[in-house]
């Protein structure tokens, strides 16, 4: 299990390859990558604020929970903070399991919890000014399925 919170960009492909190469006995690897949507050119940048210390603690707890609930071989979470441009990867999750159902479920679980329970806040910066992204009810509702 690896957890990285960093300002620097990361290489999705390199991370996916390293993750897949290290897993023993896995038949299924799922990755999720969140990208900055440019909203049809209306967005200049996205700024992500986080709560150093609590971020690592919250993500670690979410990952431990996932590793306990599903038959996983390994899991990875990378999440950036700072200023990101449209199209850049914000974060990624990877899960490896003997079978695909566990890998998919754990990746979706990690995403649902990261969205609403890890202390990150996004601000969209565009021609029209700056706006804190509002939490979506759908994201809070998504937690109820687990």
């Amino acid at each position, binding site marked *: 299990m690896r957890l990285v919170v960093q300002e620097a960009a990361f290489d999705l492909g390199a991370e996916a390859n390293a993750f897949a190469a290290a897993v023993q006995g896995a038949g299924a690897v799922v990755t999720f990558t969140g990208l900055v949507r440019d909203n049809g050119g209306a967005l200049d940048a996205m700024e992500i*604020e986080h709560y150093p210390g*609590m971020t690592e603690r919250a993500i670690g707890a979410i990952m431990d929970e996932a590793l306990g609930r599903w038959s996983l071989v390994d899991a990875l979470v990378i999440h950036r903070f700072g200023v990101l441009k449209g199209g850049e990867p914000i974060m990624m999750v990877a899960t490896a399991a003997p079978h695909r159902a566990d890998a998919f479920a754990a990746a979706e679980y990690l995403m649902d919890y990261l969205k609403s329970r890890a*202390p990150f*806040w996004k601000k969209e910066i565009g021609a029209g000014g700056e706006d804190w992204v*509002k*939490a979506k009810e759908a994201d809070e509702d998504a937690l109820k399925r687990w």
Partner: protein
Amino acid sequence: MIDILYFAWLRERIGTNREQVETQAATVADLVAELEARSEGHGLAFADKTSLRVALDQELADFAAPLSGVREVAFFPPMTGG
């Protein structure tokens, strides 16, 4: 003395990301009542309680939670990670 941390638009409205307060507040709700009286910015930041989340020593908590033994209280809007 308790460390109070603010994030996102709470931080912007209050104008600081951290302050130390001397308080006898028994719960988070009591502390909020004290904090919102500190300045116009504080009042604005704490106006909408439904948009307010709190963490005690870096663990999510609710507004009825007791403060005894707590060293760091963070206030922030609903999280938007991922």
